């Protein structure tokens, strides 16, 4: 079976109009399910050679996780994380709805290689279509009788931190959703049912399934040596065609925008990496690479593949204030610095956006950000702080205006850009 050429690897596994391919259509397009004869170490080596990194945001090498869990004793667990908590991300929902067999191929391959006792796919309860698609896909696979490990579909809660690894494990263990736990132990040591648990984003499993079929060299045919393969990126805001795109690893922001038909109107800034990500002034855009090293060099990260384009007519301070209020509300409420810190930052930003912040507002914000960073049980506050700090840099002109008592130049009631759950404008 000829491997996919070009960039449309995962997107190529989808049917028309967001419908999914049946199992037989899927096999027709990609060939039989990937070889199941390999063990944990062989799989780890394959993933090592491919250089695949997780697609959930942390970008951790997949091989390392496979080895960490695969080398442990007892009944192992594998979990596909489709709990996509970032409001500006829809790639996981798309993948689960339109190409569930891609994800299940990867889960099945890993489950067999590690000889796990349990394999779980987590889909948000509210993603009804994704749920339906995965459920049907599982029925097809059961009827075909090719799956050697039973995969369980579990509906999980929504929420910004619901997909955080330890929080997801907590929920799967019967605990409340959206409550990260203190680590160590991490899931790979003690996870679902106290067992060593391998958790990967659903997109990561989709890539693993294809690597299992076509190999690591094929995987590396796209992307760069440091950033091999392809990424799904959710692109929204002031572009001609917002949506989910598949881009090459190490690609440029310009190429991504180009694929979406270019910008729509004058652009002010780019938010890269989601709401735990980084603002970049538009002037930097021509030089911005989205690869791991490129992003790190400018203090950013692609995260779970999210880019939001801010038009010139919006106010970055006001947008950030809205998001920070959301981030403060999404705190699990367990850690003082996060609960109190994000609330204080959100309030200060709201005051700034309205032009009524007290003197020293920016100094206070910077001091709070420095204090809040890395002081929660999870990285939720770290992301929020990153976004705030980058806001203070990227929107320095508007910041000066707001600091000196001017309210937003954006007319009151103007349409907000960054999507939040519950917004009328947000399709969800």
């Amino acid at each position, binding site marked *: 079976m000829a491997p996919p050429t070009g960039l449309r690897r995962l997107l190529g596994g989808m049917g028309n109009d967001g419908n999914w391919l049946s199992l037989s259509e899927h096999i027709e397009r990609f060939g039989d399910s990937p070889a199941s004869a390999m063990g944990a170490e062989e799989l780890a080596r394959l993933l090592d050679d491919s250089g695949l990194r997780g697609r959930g945001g942390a970008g951790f090498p997949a091989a390392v996780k496979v080895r960490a869990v695969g080398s442990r004793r007892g009944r192992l667990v594998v979990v596909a994380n489709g709990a996509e908590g970032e409001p500006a991300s829809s790639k996981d929902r798309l993948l689960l709805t339109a190409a569930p067999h891609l994800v299940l191929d990867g889960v099945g391959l890993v489950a067999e290689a590690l000889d796990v006792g349990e394999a779980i796919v987590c889909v948000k309860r509210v993603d009804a279509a994704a749920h339906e698609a995965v459920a049907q896909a599982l029925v097809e696979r059961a009827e075909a009788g090719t799956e050697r490990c039973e995969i369980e579909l579990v509906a999980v809660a929504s929420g910004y931190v619901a997909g955080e690894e330890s929080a997801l494990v907590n929920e799967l263990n019967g605990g409340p959703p959206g409550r990260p736990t*203190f680590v160590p132990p991490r899931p790979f040591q003690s996870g679902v049912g106290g067992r060593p648990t391998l958790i990967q984003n659903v997109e990561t499993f989709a890539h693993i399934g294809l690597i299992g079929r076509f190999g690591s060299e094929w995987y590396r045919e796209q992307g760069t040596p440091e950033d091999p393969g392809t990424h799904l990126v959710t692109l929204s805001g002031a572009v001609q065609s917002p949506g989910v795109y598949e881009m090459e690893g190490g690609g440029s922001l310009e190429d991504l925008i180009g694929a979406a038909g270019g910008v729509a109107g004058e652009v002010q800034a780019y938010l890269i990496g989601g709401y735990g990500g980084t603002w970049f002034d538009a002037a930097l855009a021509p030089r911005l690479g989205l690869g791991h090293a490129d992003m790190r060099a400018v203090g950013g990260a692609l995260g779970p593949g999210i880019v939001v384009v801010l038009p010139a007519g919006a106010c970055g301070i006001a947008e950030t204030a809205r998001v920070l209020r959301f981030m403060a509300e999404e705190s699990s409420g367990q850690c*003082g*610095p996060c609960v109190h810190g994000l609330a204080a930052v959100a309030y200060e930003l709201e005051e700034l956006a309205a032009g009524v912040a007290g003197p020293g507002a920016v100094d206070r914000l910077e001091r709070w950000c420095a204090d809040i960073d890395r*002081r*929660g*049980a999870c990285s939720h506050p770290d992301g929020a702080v990153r976004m705030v700090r980058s806001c203070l840099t990227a929107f320095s002109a508007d910041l000066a205006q707001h600091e000196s008592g001017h309210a937003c130049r954006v007319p009151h009631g103007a349409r907000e850009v960054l999507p939040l759950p519950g917004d009328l404008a947000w399709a969800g």
Partner: protein
Amino acid sequence: MSPPHLRVNPITCTGHGICAELFPERIRLDDWGYPVIDEAPVHGDLIDHAQRAVEACPTMALLLEARARAGVED
């Protein structure tokens, strides 16, 4: 044996603050009363102060650990 490191479990911590009173060399309180811990290794005489602070924490949130958590340099 290499020197230990202080760490707080931020979930168990309720911001009681006695740790900062007992070990101000390495612990201060943020604007909301929660401990900001200097995670550098604790040497020599300071270890006693660290131990006392750990024992005094009413929720046992303060920990003296053999290894630094990931990302902290020794």
